[in-house]
């Protein structure tokens, strides 16, 4: 199978890339690591007329420490770099934990964090992880830059708040609050396959031992990352216990309306979401 013909553009700066994307409008696509876009093009599920390759934009690469303990990650930073970074392991352990779950080594050697976030595949791990970490996305477009919290970035299936001509340039992760712990769990048929369901969770425990704040987001059970708001509320104000975890798992499963497909029925996905919620929270209680 072959992709349809396209014009290949390789800008040398972010400004040039934005200009090329603006010129191309809806027919232009930015190419990051290409690990989702090229398969889609090989099967002609995507047929962009112009491919704007971000390969040379070194200003979009790298992991920088923020003074307050957070991180700024360039959108073109490879999964592999996040996986091997001691800075990420130290400051964003949830990001380090999720890396081995993302596809296979070959994919992580080319795939980028920004590409994964902007592609908005509902089965992707990073959108949920960035959501529970309260990450903020830095975007640049023809009219300048803006920031978008992850909570407002995902609008639907493969759809984000990015306008044509806009480029995701960096991801800012605030420092993990004191007393916060996090976990990630997913189920897939074989390791590296798309998840049938998955969950990312951050729990902040107060000095009194009760949960002060909780963030939980699920993947592969909706049109994008699904924030489990009622579950989060149910956890706050009491210590994590067998009972509170059981409640949280039940609420998570109850609130979801997952899709059925060849890989799993809606009922099975709902069941998995409950089990995974249970497992993730159990780990945080231990």
């Amino acid at each position: 199978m072959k992709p349809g013909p396209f014009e290949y553009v390789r800008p040398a700066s972010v400004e040039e890339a934005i200009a090329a994307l603006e010129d191309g409008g809806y027919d232009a696509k930015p190419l990051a690591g290409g690990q989702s876009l090229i398969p889609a093009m090989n099967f002609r599920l995507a047929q962009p007329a112009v491919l704007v390759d971000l390969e040379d934009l070194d200003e979009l690469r790298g992991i920088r420490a923020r003074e307050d303990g957070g991180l700024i990650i360039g959108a073109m930073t490879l999964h592999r770099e996040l996986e091997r970074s001691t800075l990420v392991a130290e400051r964003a352990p949830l990001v380090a934990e999720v890396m081995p779950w993302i596809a296979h080594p070959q994919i992580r050697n080319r795939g980028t964090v920004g590409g994964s976030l902007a592609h908005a595949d509902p089965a992707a791990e990073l959108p949920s992880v960035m959501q529970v970490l309260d990450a903020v996305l830095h975007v640049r477009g023809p009219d300048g830059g803006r920031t978008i919290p992850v909570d407002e970035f995902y609008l639907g299936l493969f759809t984000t708040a990015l306008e044509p001509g806009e480029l995701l340039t960096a991801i800012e992760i605030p420092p993990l609050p004191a007393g916060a712990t996090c976990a990630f769990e997913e189920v897939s048929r074989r390791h590296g396959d798309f998840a049938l369901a998955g969950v990312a969770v951050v729990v902040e425990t107060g000095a009194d031992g009760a949960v002060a704040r909780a963030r939980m987001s699920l993947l592969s059970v909706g049109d994008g990352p699904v924030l489990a708001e009622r579950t989060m509320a149910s956890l706050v104000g009491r210590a994590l216990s067998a009972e509170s975890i059981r409640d949280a798992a039940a609420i998570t499963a109850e609130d979801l309306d997952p899709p059925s497909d060849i890989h799993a029925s809606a009922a099975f996905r709902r069941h998995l979401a409950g089990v995974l919620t249970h497992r993730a929270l159990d780990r945080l209680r231990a």
Partner: protein
Amino acid sequence: MKQILELRVNGDRHEVGVPTHFTLLETLRYVLGLTGSKQGCDKGDCGACTVIVDGEAVLSCIMPVQEAEGREVRTVEGIAGRRGAHPLQKAFDLTGAAQCGFCTPGILCSALALLEVNPQADRDEIARALSGNLCRCTGYTKIFEAVLLAGQAMSSGREPAEIIGEP
């Protein structure tokens, strides 16, 4: 629409005219005639097209050829040296790790990228490094044995046959 690119493959420099929509795999197979890398799924699922780019295993079927410019590409054709088969290839032969052989070039590349960094990789590390390569014949046991043996050979400088006591 074609463009002229300069590629470095297995130590050789090639100036090639390729259609802009070609992947690295299509260029290797249909322009350079290096048909060792296999075209399996064309969507990054099977790993049969795995090659080594700047020391890392990547999927050539989903890498636009332009992105290989300025990089060192190695394919299964480049694994053997002047003195014959690479220890990894000998280990595959000795342990019977190849059956139909379709997945083998990709698996050799994934395994080599691992062993060149970590020849003492254990079975778990090998399994993780090969998790993106599907084999439908062997059930992986002999493949893991082969990669373990190759790692031993590469870190000790001994021949794989000598290690397992084959004549």
